Every structure is written in structure tokens, then in C-alpha cells.
């Protein structure tokens, strides 16, 4: 089990390199296709307004000490009072954004398009890899692994005595999938459609953002203690002037 298998260099020439090249090309193709299919999405007025409210509330929190106490308090009431405060989201409404996102046909279409452009090439490439490049050892991973990884990395190889470090081409495919992101940002510039991992992370947390943000801002605003910094400024101005006059 500890013997070193000698792998044919032909594997490197005909499996590893072509697979990487193909994945790079498919990535570039997807980038251009996504540019063609880019539909200018009209921004939803409510979401824009909410974004701006959040920015304004954040500014209020950050610079609260620069305005007189009365003004601060009146603004705080404006934002977080129970009846029509901007940041106040009654409990019933909190569920809406996600439902709205599904029912709104445009947004649903957009999300479907984005998902499709990600899923279809991945599925096709995966099937192609499985069909053509299965049943042999493709590479050796430089570090030892436990037996649990056997099913994941060695799926085409039906020998159970082969060291787990010897993997099939499926694992090379996955390695490329996640690793080529850096290469794509070099070639295609920062914003490219091949950022699958980012998209996958986005998929897990969508929809709820607006109402949660508002609630968070409101809580933050309620906590702020207003300590008017201006009286200090008189002292500082004196010090500045004293230095200036000398």
C-alpha cells in the first residue's frame, strides 16, 4: 500500500492539461455569454429607498455627537418611532421580501438566469469528465489523506488498496473549479461571472437583507448615547489660536 505508483507522463499530457485548458475556455465563454445576456435590471424603488435610509441612519449614528442634542433626538424619533418611523418594521412585514422576490417575475427570471448560467456548464463539464476521464488514476496528492476521502476522490478506481493520495480526474476537476477563480480575475478583470463560490455564498443568504438591516440599524440607533462634542471644541479652538498667535 505504501508503494509508489509510477504514473505515465501521458496522463499529464492528455488529462490534466487538457482538462484545465477546457475549464479556462469554458469560463471565458460563460463570461462573454453572461455579458450578452445582461438584462438591465430596473432597480426597485423600495429597495433603493431602504438602502438610502440605512446610509442616512448610519451617518446619524456615526456623527451623532456633532449636532445639538435636540436635533439628534428629533431625528432619532423620526427614524425609530412606533407609528411611522422609517426604520420601524412591524413584525408581519418582515417575511415579505423573500416572498416578494419569488413572486416578482422579473427578479425570479434574473435569478434563474444567473443560476442556470452557473449550473449548466458545471453539470456538462462534470458529465464530460466522468465519461471520458474515469477509471484511472490521474494524479497523486502530495500530502497523505485518511480513508474517509476515498469515496470522494477515487470514484472511478475500484481498487480498495490503492493509497488515497492517488486520485481520479474528478478531483482534478473540482480542484480546477475552485482554483481557477484567481486566474479568471487576472484575465477577465475583477467583476466576472465565473465567481461561482461567491454566488453560492450569496444563494444561502438572500432575500432577508432589507428588513434585517433596518431592524439592526434601529437597534443601533436606540443604543446611541448622545454626548455633544461641541463644547470641547471651544477649548480646542482656544488652544489652536494660542498657538497661532505665538
Amino acid at each position: 500500500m505504501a508503494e509508489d505508483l509510477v504514473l505515465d507522463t501521458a496522463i499529464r499530457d492528455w488529462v490534466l492539461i487538457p482538462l484545465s485548458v477546457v475549464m479556462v475556455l469554458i469560463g471565458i465563454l460563460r463570461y462573454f455569454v453572461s455579458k450578452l445576456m445582461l438584462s438591465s435590471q430596473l432597480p426597485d424603488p423600495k429597495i433603493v429607498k431602504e438602502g438610502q435610509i440605512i446610509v442616512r441612519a448610519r451617518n446619524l449614528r456615526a456623527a451623532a455627537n456633532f449636532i445639538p442634542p435636540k436635533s439628534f433626538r428629533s431625528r432619532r424619533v423620526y427614524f425609530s418611532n412606533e407609528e411611522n418611523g422609517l426604520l420601524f418594521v412591524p413584525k408581519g412585514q418582515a417575511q415579505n421580501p423573500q416572498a416578494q422576490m419569488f413572486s416578482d417575475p422579473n427578479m425570479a427570471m434574473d435569478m434563474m438566469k444567473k443560476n442556470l448560467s452557473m449550473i449548466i456548464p458545471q453539470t456538462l463539464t462534470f458529465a464530460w469528465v466522468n465519461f471520458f476521464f474515469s477509471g484511472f488514476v490521474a494524479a497523486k496528492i502530495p500530502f497523505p489523506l485518511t480513508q474517509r476521502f476515498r469515496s470522494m476522490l477515487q470514484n472511478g478506481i475500484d481498487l480498495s488498496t490503492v493509497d488515497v493520495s492517488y486520485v481520479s480526474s474528478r478531483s482534478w476537476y473540482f480542484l480546477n473549479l475552485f482554483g481557477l477563480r484567481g486566474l479568471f480575475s487576472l484575465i477577465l478583470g475583477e467583476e466576472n461571472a465565473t465567481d461561482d463560490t461567491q454566488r453560492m455564498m450569496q444563494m444561502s443568504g438572500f432575500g432577508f437583507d432589507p428588513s434585517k438591516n433596518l431592524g439592526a440599524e434601529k437597534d443601533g440607533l436606540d443604543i446611541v448615547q448622545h454626548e455633544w462634542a461641541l463644547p470641547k471644541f471651544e477649548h480646542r479652538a482656544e488652544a489652536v489660536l494660542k498657538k497661532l498667535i505665538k
Partner: protein
Amino acid sequence: MVSKTEETQLNRLENQVDNGGGGAWEYLCLARKLKVRRPENVLKYGLSILNDSKKRSALGPEEWTLYEQVAIAAMDCQCLDVAKDCIKVLRKKFPESKRVGRLEGMLLEAKGLWGEAEKAYSSLLEDNALDQVIHKRRVAMAKAQGNISAAIEWLNKYLEIFMADHDAWRELAEIYVSLQMYKQAAFCYEELILSQPTVPLYHLAYADVLYTLGGLENLQTAKKYYASTIDLTGGKNTRALLGICLCTSAIGQVSKGRNKEDKESPELQSLAAKALEKDYKQRADDKLGLLTSVLTSLKI
């Protein structure tokens, strides 16, 4: 707002091009980036590049941005034929563009055809209700027609949606000051201070408005904001120094009978007066007499 280094760079480029030494394109790019309004120069240099077909093709895709910039400058200088030609070229190239639609609306404004411009803008807004630039153009148009209350109304509606746009708050504050609606102007300046607390300009304007409103509390607050302006500008702002002197004497006058509560007032005022005298001696010696007479009259 343009910083001092950027301004000097702009002026330097301007001089350079004026005296015949190249650099017109850099000047135009810098003017576009800083959003300064120098219509005659932009028009002159822009046309010199556009009329020369070799230079024009050297620009590549930037050519269209230059057409837009020259069109706006031409409208500023009332050279409406130049503007119309530029817009025609742009319309041929980008038939469905909203940006070109905005330029056409601006051309109608420049010609003084307010009704049609209003119609053009409304139709553009129907397609995209959240186009900030078109909203602002509507406000500008109302202001240009002299219909200030409509301008205020449009601007308030705009700010209801885009409340983080500090340029709009600034515009609203200036409109209110021009109409002497000082309380509302104070609110706008507070918004500006909230969004950019380290810009001394807003502190100064806020202090001015508070001083104009009058009343003991406002005067004391105004004094504090003049002090913060001095702190933020390192004591170099003449207006703030004079503001301190005026505020202190006004407070003294208002609270003649009551006991004075702020302990640092005499020091701050005398320090400000000394700083002013020093400044005047350095920069405008002949006006020093005026200053001393004002200061002596205040200390009473």
C-alpha cells in the same frame, strides 16, 4: 468639492494649453473627473480636438464622452448650434440611449422651451423612475424659471427617496437661505454635518445660520460651531474668527442682566481678535484700521 492641489493642477494645465503646449486632453479629463464648470475652455479645447479628425480617431471610444462634454459646455456658452451638432452625432451613434435623451432635454432647456423640456424629462422618468440625474435636472429647471417653490417641492420629493445624497441637501440648504427660511436651512446643514463631520465649510454655514436666527441658545450654539470651524481649519478661517467675536458680543448683549455662564468666553474672543489682527497685518495691512474700529465697537 475640489481640493487645493487639484485646483492648482487644473489651472496649471489650463495655462499650459493656453500658451500652446499640448495637454488639452488631460485638461478635459481632469475637468470631467472633478466636475468643475469651465465652459469656455472646455469648448475651445474640445472643439480643437473634435474638428481635427486625426486627433479624434486617436481617442477611440472616449470620443463620445468628449462629444457629451463639449455639448454641455456649448450649452453653457449658448453656442446652441455646436451643441445641436454634437447631440446629433451622439444620437446617430446611440439611438436608444437615455444619456442622449438627457442631453436633448438640456438643449431644450438651453433654448428656453421649458414645457417641452419638462415633457422630455417626464418621459425619460417613466422609463426609469430612479434616474437621479433627471430628477436633479427637473429641480434645476424649476430654479432657472424662477419658480423656487416648485424647485423646493421637487427637491424634497427627490430627497425622500435619495436621502443620502449630500449634494442635494446642500442645494436645498442654499435655496432655503436665499428664501430666509433659516430653520429649515439649519436642518439641512445638520444633515450635511452628519454625513461629513470633518468638512469645516458646513460647520461654518451652520454657525452663520444659527447666528442669523438669533436667540441666546442659538447664539451659544453658533459660537461653538465657529469654534469647531477654527479647530478644523487651524485658525486660518477669517470668517470664523470674526464670527466668534460677533457671537460673544451678541451673547453679552442678550444676557446683560443674567449672570454669564460660559467661563471661557472672554479668552476666546480676545484670542480670536488677536489672531485676526495678526492675519490682517500680514495680508491686508491697509485694512487694519477698519478691523480695529470694528473690534473696539464690539467689545462694548
